[in-house]
């Protein structure tokens, strides 16, 4: 079985995001970029499945400008076998991403797609569900546990009240949550090896998909800042302030 893992290039999660002065978006120039942390978990899960004998090839795919090839190389350095880069502008909406991925699925015929539950830039939480819809496949979302059982997979989902166990028919799209695993670091020898792994490049037009945005972002601004508070001297002072000043207890 082949596993497809879409990986998104986003601003590194340690970087403090700055809104552009003209309120047209956030500053991306000269900012450290990295693989979306949830997608790292997806790559890791695919690799573990392969190492356990449950998959024979892990293919990483990324959609965006040419720099996205670095993100694919990161996945290859972790252990993915092959990469596919689809050239597209940076701002591409989840629906268009899902349509492109659908075409990749048609070409590659994976048995499973592992993808992060959300990207930490637009925080949309849509792509996996949309891809499953377009393919007519089962979806396991926000997954923190998975076991493949032949033509189905037992998944554990992180839901608001706790956990939910589902049986999803394969092939399936599985969106991964934080607690599924802890992604490995790529070793230096593996980073060197990754440079020689195959990486194909395509364009959105090659796949015949319309990627024009459907939504217009008219303004991006900083959230209202909280005013700095005060330090209290001890617990008694705190309780007094909460009771008599803030009146919240």
């Amino acid at each position: 079985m082949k596993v497809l893992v879409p990986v998104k290039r986003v601003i590194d999660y340690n970087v403090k995001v700055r809104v552009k002065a003209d309120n047209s978006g956030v500053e991306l120039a000269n900012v450290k970029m990295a693989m979306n942390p949830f997608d790292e978990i997806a790559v890791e899960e695919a690799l573990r499945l392969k190492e356990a004998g449950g998959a024979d090839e892990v293919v990483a795919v990324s959609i965006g400008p040419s720099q996205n090839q670095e993100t694919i190389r990161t996945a290859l350095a972790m252990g993915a076998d092959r990469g596919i880069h689809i050239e597209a502008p940076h701002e591409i909406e989840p629906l268009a991403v899902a349509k492109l991925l659908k075409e990749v699925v048609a070409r590659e015929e994976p048995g499973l797609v592992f993808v992060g539950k959300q990207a930490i830039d637009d925080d949309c939480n849509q792509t996996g569900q949309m891809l499953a819809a377009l393919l007519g496949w089962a979806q396991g979302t926000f997954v923190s546990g998975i076991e493949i059982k032949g033509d189905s997979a037992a998944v554990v989902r992180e839901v608001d009240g706790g956990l939910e166990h589902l049986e999803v028919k394969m092939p399936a799209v599985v969106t991964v949550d934080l607690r599924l695993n802890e992604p490995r670091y790529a070793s230096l020898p593996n980073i060197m090896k990754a440079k020689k792994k195959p990486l194909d490049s395509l364009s959105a037009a090659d796949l015949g998909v319309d990627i024009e945005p459907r939504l217009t972002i008219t303004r991006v601004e900083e959230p209202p800042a909280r005013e700095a508070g005060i330090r209290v001297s001890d617990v008694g002072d705190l309780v007094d302030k909460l009771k008599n000043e803030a009146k919240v207890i």
Partner: protein
Amino acid sequence: MSILILADHDNGQLAPATLNTVTAAKEIGGEIHMLVAGDASGDVASAAATIDGVAKVLTAADASMAHGIAENVAPLIQSIATGYTHLMAPATTTGKNIMPRVAALLDVMQVSDIIKVDSADTFQRPIYAGNAIATVTSGEAIKVVTVRGTAFEAAAAEGGSAVIEAVDAGGDSGLSSYVKSELSSSERPELTSAPIVISGGRGMQDGANFAMLEKVADKLGAAVGASRAAVDAGFVPNDYQVGQTGKVVAPDLYVAVGISGAIQHLAGMKDSKVIVAINKDEEAPIFQVADFGLVADLFEAVPELETKLG
């Protein structure tokens, strides 16, 4: 304008965030309908019919609808979507799971997790863990929107008298089946709707130490939460997690104990009315958003807090 809201429920009760979604829908304007897809969920439909502002409740009763399986519910919504200008749901794990599947079936882009309605087609939503707010306009004929509950007041649960109408549930797609749930049982209020939340971070050192927070929570009628670091360290289950990738809360009082204040945690709680931080590291970023900061060893401060609350 005509809006259909997907009710989030457990076949017995409506999830509170459904009421906040009604308020967001009222701000858009137009007639509001609510879909209750479930099994033996008559009580939920009755409750939905009394929500102030809801004109009609559609019920799709079938065993295949019992557990909110997206592969079954999404085609149902698609089948009744014609005529609606907006399809909405709370941005709970149910809404987040189902609505993008609906949007893709309808070939429209979804607007996720809105925090403000500017007009019928323009919304504000947080991006980058709430470090920026984007104003987004949708030109789609049917706008699929999920709503952050804490950003809108709850609509009154009483006062409405909607008609209840059955629709064809459609049936089982055969793609996914429900096995079981492991729900955290707690006498304490639910995290996202609790008026007071007390959360622990990595500084708690051990899951057993959360008992200290629980004692304080019980005196205050508070819910207990945690930072991602505490969840990652295995102290508490993931459904305690407050943050960008967990739950977003905005209580009257949020008490952060042993939490450093990583960006992704602040994203989940910085809209709280009053924030208290207890941390022995006076440089911890949590103090920058705290109204009241106490630099202290939590293992001394928390038991003392419990005592002083009487």
